């Protein structure tokens, strides 16, 4: 076992480095789960109301694709946790992927693992330590989530099953990330590969769940997300299903350890292809450099949003027709008929896309920060490139990139929606509804830019703001917060299109706010020391 020597010290090092980040991540999961359980428990106090609501979900393919099926329509726990089972599970998977890569490939790429590796540390120790930390974090997350759910008034057995189902998804993806970390030689590429796998298996279970009894329902058994759902918490608690992700983890981890032995330090299994010996014409200024660094990510996001747009546009018209119960019909009438219901659906989904798009925008702007702290900004700023034009080169990609992505999604959603309804006007309505998301997204990129320029060590404020606005939007109505508090979120000021009234004034204010924040960031950056590491 000499290959594992030093695992213990690496585990302690990882815990020392990540104690704050891990605590915050886990806390967010637990609070979100307990909060949404607590908020819905009181809403459905009769069996009839639960069956009605659950049946409505089960009959709506778009919701089933997104969240999954409810197997026991009378179960309170199943209904309250339907939104978090698969979707939250996917976020747990992201947590696991980032954690494993952070302590394996990212460390190796930065050269720090070499320093560690030259001390008394076995060949397999870094991966073993990363996995040990990740598994422990997932188990803790599962247990605390279970306790949170019990505390919110859900049955004990189902709560434990739900917590363990979440943990099992995280454990399975730790194995996936372990392999990805060996295959590629860059952390970015490794994360991309593991995320792509997550996307594929999420779609596999969506197809399996919506297939109907005669369709390929077995597809859900090919997906770690599907396994988590098939534990069926609060609806029979099938404990034996948990063995599948555990077996999957053992297998993938064994493969990863074999791969470690097959490759050189700092190298991946996929060879690095040589590139051009000379720079192309475009690589001559800060914008050319920023574009080169950011373009891959932009194309990836665009492709993902086009697919989302196509799916939402396509299923929107089905939303009304699947609600056949009298209660549902009554609800539809209240919302303004079938048209009102599909509009409300589109508006909700586009709003969600706006929030997700902010992740891209913040990430692009905060590239400035990582370029600075990893000392790649210094050589560029020591040439004729001015600070403003360097910083602006990434910010402008954030602004135009978010525009391009949401426009592509609006185009896809509008076309597929209009194709369903046969009404050409619907294309324009949906496209405009997509575009109006932009000013709020730009406020978030502006916050990131301001943090970078004025308080670079606190640049994570961009992410903190996003999480805060997201929680405000999700839980504000449930906790009946006053409107003035809810209005702190820029997303609260976006017109509810399609269907709602279009008002330009709040959008103009959001654009002005974004411009002010961005300017403050640029001015701050021009005046401060570089690099601040």
């Amino acid at each position: 076992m000499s290959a594992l020597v030093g695992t213990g010290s690496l585990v302690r090092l990882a815990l020392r480095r990540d104690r704050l980040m891990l605590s915050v991540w886990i806390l967010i999961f637990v609070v979100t789960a307990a909060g949404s359980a607590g908020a819905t428990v009181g809403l459905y106090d009769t069996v009839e109301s639960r069956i009605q609501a659950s049946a409505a979900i089960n009959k709506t393919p778009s919701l089933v694709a997104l969240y999954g099926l409810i197997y026991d329509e009378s179960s309170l726990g199943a209904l309250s946790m339907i939104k978090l089972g698969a979707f939250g599970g996917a976020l747990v998977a992201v947590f696991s992927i980032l954690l494993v890569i952070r302590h394996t490939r990212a460390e190796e790429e930065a050269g720090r693992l070499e320093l560690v590796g030259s001390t008394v540390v076995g060949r397999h120790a870094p991966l073993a330590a990363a996995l040990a930390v990740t598994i422990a974090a997932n188990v803790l997350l599962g247990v605390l989530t279970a306790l949170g759910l019990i505390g919110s008034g859900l049955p004990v057995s189902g709560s434990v099953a739900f917590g363990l189902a979440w943990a099992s998804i995280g454990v399975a993806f730790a194995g996936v990330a372990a392999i990805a970390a060996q295959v590629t030689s860059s952390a970015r590429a490794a994360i991309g590969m593991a995320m792509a796998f997550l996307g594929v298996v999420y779609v596999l279970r969506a197809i399996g769940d919506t297939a109907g009894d005669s369709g390929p329902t077995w597809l859900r058994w090919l997906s770690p997300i599907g396994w988590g759902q098939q534990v069926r918490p609060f609806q029979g608690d099938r404990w034996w299903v948990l063995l599948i992700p555990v077996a999957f983890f053992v297998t993938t981890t064994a493969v990863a350890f074999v791969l470690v032995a097959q490759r050189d330090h700092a190298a991946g299994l996929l060879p690095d292809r040589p590139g051009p010996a000379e720079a192309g014409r475009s690589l001559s200024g800060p914008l050319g450099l920023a574009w080169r660094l950011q373009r891959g990510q932009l194309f990836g996001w665009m492709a993902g949003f086009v697919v989302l747009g196509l799916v939402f546009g396509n299923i929107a018209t089905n939303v009304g027709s699947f609600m056949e119960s009298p209660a549902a019909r009554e609800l539809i009438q209240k919302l303004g008929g079938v048209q009102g219901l599909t509009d409300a659906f589109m508006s909700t989904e586009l709003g969600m896309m706006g929030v997700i798009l902010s992740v891209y925008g913040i990430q692009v702007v905060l590239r400035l920060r990582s370029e600075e702290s990893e000392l790649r900004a210094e050589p560029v700023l020591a040439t004729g490139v001015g600070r403003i034009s360097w910083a602006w080169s990434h910010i402008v990609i954030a602004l135009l990139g978010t525009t391009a992505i949401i426009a592509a999604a609006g185009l896809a959603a509008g076309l597929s929606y209009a194709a369903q309804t046969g009404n050409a006007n619907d294309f324009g309505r949906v496209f405009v509804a997509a575009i109006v998301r932009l000013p709020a997204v730009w406020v978030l990129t502006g916050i990131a830019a301001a943090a970078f320029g004025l308080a670079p060590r606190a640049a994570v404020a961009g992410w903190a703001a996003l999480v805060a606005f997201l929680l405000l939007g999700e839980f504000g109505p449930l906790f009946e917060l006053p409107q003035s508090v809810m209005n702190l979120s820029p997303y609260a000021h976006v017109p509810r299109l399609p269907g709602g009234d279009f008002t330009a004034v709040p959008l103009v204010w959001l654009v002005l706010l974004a411009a002010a924040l961005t300017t403050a960031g640029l001015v701050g950056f021009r005046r401060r020391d570089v690099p601040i590491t």
Partner: protein
Amino acid sequence: MNAPTDTAISVSGLVKTFGNTRALDGLDLTVNTGEVHGFLGPNGSGKTTTIRVLLGLLRSDSGAARLLGGDPWRDATTLHRRLAYVPGDVTLWPNLTGGEVIDMLGRMRAGLNKQRRNELLERFDLDPKKKGRAYSKGNKQKVGLVAALASDVELLILDEPTSGLDPLMEEVFQQCINEERRRGRTVLLSSHVLAEVEALCDRVTIIRLGRTAETGTLSEMRHLTRTSIAADLAGEPNGLGTLAGIHNLEVEGTRVRFEADTNQLDAVLRQLTSIGVRSLLSQPPTLEELFLRHYQDDLRNGQKQVGAAVSS
């Protein structure tokens, strides 16, 4: 003092603090146009901080700094087109090739001499087609050096540029710097490789704890130091022990070994010849001795601190 046009860099009384740490504490530095100036100091003495102030990346708290006749902070971008900088730890973009980085940085300055670029690639034995993440530390350093040396600039600012280079490449580097000198370019070379500074530099500035400890030509500095002498004398070494400027005298019969202050050398030799010299070996002080003498105090203090920490 030189006229301003002959001075590429002039810094006086520079102070820069980071929180409670005083990184620069009244630093002075003058680099004449056309010279290779060595900038010596141990790790953490303030070399990189000085360079970052000169590049307009850091803003000094007080003191004056002029670079190529301009203000390093206010005129940063116009000045930067006339200089090339190689950081001590060259970090490359993982997915850009070395060749791309060299061309891009050159274009961001005044431009690149393509013929010289290809010649330098060959001399440094660097493959420009590799991606940034695939280079070793030494090869990353070479990318930075080729990018700087192939640029059409007046001033080169090199911050410990040879860390990670093998002796063969160190030799190529020294040739290149000598060529730059012949072309009339100014070089500020921060280093702690003393042999390199001794081989290349016209003048040297030694700093410690953010202050200038010593500055001048190497021969000027040697005057302030001791020459070690070993001699076999014709008779008893009388009178040497009382002579001013003699240190660490060891006597073994007629053989003597000692160190003499360089400015007292004349009197010492006269005393030796009055006794009669059979053989004489004299060694001029190396920069290393000079350097060590400046840092002996620090070293001793450091050892004391370590000792205290161990015993406590």
